[in-house]
């Protein structure tokens, strides 16, 4: 097991955003965590990445409890995140954004190869590499955010609503890329409101509502589930 979240609770002051959540991610999987707006998805990812401290519970990654680790140690350990809203660095060029993704890495030869790989996966980033990242379109910014996270060479990639606010062609492309990332051996924890897409590419999924896990199963099982269909798939 690569990641195991046990009885995790997270608060914002008096607001209990995550209330005793359990889930796990195995090496090589895509696991989708779906849920409506405000369910606590982003909070869970922030806590895994060390931006927030849990009120209770454990996060075990690769055999270590990491819930007290600083974020840079977590990144160094192989967890990187594509945050909600993309959060690319405006004012830095596309290339500089990618370089920042590789902030903790030293090996120049390996880096060179990885820039090449990112550019092959996202040709538009190569075309725009000297452009201010803020001038990219939403879909391109999403690709940059993914490229930036991949430059850290993660074992586990956390993605927070990568399809949010994107045009349909970009959405399909993003989900194709997520599958390709998995094929290359990176484990993915994917968070989405776009439940049908997220479940259709997932090995397993969890349904989150108001800070609790309601249901779990394979991607297919959840897609076929009547309650899931009613609540999250618009039918």
């Amino acid at each position, binding site marked *: 097991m690569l990641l195991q979240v046990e009885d995790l609770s997270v608060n914002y002051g008096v607001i209990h955003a995550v209330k005793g959540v359990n889930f796990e991610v195995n090496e090589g999987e895509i696991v989708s965590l779906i849920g409506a707006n405000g369910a606590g998805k982003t909070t869970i990812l922030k806590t895994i*990445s*060390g*931006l927030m401290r849990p009120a209770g519970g454990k996060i075990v990654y690769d055999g270590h409890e990491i819930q007290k680790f*600083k*974020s*840079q140690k977590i*990144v*160094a350990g192989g967890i*990187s*995140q594509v*945050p909600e809203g993309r*959060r*690319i*660095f*405006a*004012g*830095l060029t596309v290339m*500089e954004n990618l*370089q*920042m*993704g590789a*902030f*903790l890495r030293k090996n120049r030869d390996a880096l060179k190869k990885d820039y090449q790989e990112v550019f092959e996966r996202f040709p538009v980033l190569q075309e725009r590499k000297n452009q201010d990242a*803020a001038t*990219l*379109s*939403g879909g391109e*910014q999403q690709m940059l955010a993914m490229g*930036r*996270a991949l430059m*850290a060479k993660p074992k586990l990639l956390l993605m927070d609503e990568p399809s949010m*606010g994107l045009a349909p062609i970009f959405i399909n492309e993003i989900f194709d890329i997520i599958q390709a990332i998995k094929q290359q051996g990176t484990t993915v924890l994917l968070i989405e409101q776009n439940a049908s897409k997220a479940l259709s590419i997932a090995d397993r999924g969890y349904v989150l509502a108001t800070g609790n896990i309601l249901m779990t199963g394979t991607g297919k099982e959840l897609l076929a589930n009547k309650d899931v269909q009613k609540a999250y798939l618009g039918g």
Partner: protein
Amino acid sequence: MQQLVNGLSLGSIYALLALGYTMVYGIIKLINFAHGDIYMLGAFWGYYVINQLHFNFWLALASAMLFCALVGVVIEYLAYRPLRNSPRIAALITAIGVSFLLENGMAYMFSSNVRSFPQVMKVKQYHLGSVSISNIQILILAVSIILMILLQLIVRKTKMGKAMRAVSVDPAAAQLIGINIDRTISFTFALGSAMAGAAGVMIGLYYNSIDPLMGMTPGIKAFVAAVLGGIGLIPGAAIGGFVIGLLETLMQALGFSAFKDAAVYAVLIIILLIRPAGILGKKIKEKV
């Protein structure tokens, strides 16, 4: 013409100081009121190492930069870091407190007398037609411009410089890629304070007098320069510094010496009214 020369040398001092304000503001959104006092400490450091240790100008300059960098880092660590997640007003008040502490601490330890700065260099005047320019003025201009170019290279080209810009734009996203925020902020204080230290030594040489309160007025003027150029923008601070320096000498030349400080504050008010983002500032649009 003469005023242009005088204004540029004074302006380059303001520019060096304004850089520190703008970088610190860029990264932690704090107006570091103690910044002018770091410049004062730089001047005192220069005074002592030249008098006691017989350092030459370059050694005094370099060591003052190092010393001030260290002071800046320590101030951030002790005074501002514990308040990082407190309301901004708390840090602002603390900054004012640090400023008083440095001014009064120095006055207590070294007395508040004005003392004359050791002249490590013989003043030479060069005359180009009706314009006279001293070797000190040339030195100040040259050193300031070299430091600004160096700073720009550090911020644009080095990994830490890029990290600084990344943290300024989005600290949480920077953390998510493994950038150590604390270290990046320390680095920013070190750079900004080193610039102030250099400015302090050079102003000592230029005006020939230093005292514990010498940082107050230039500090405020440099802050105005930073706002004028667009707070948070490094090239803006440089431009703002030169503009303020020129404005001040121009006022003096026109016989309004008594109003030269007032003119600077008037600039601040006008800028805040008509273009709060500053000369180089632009409104940042959300991209979807």
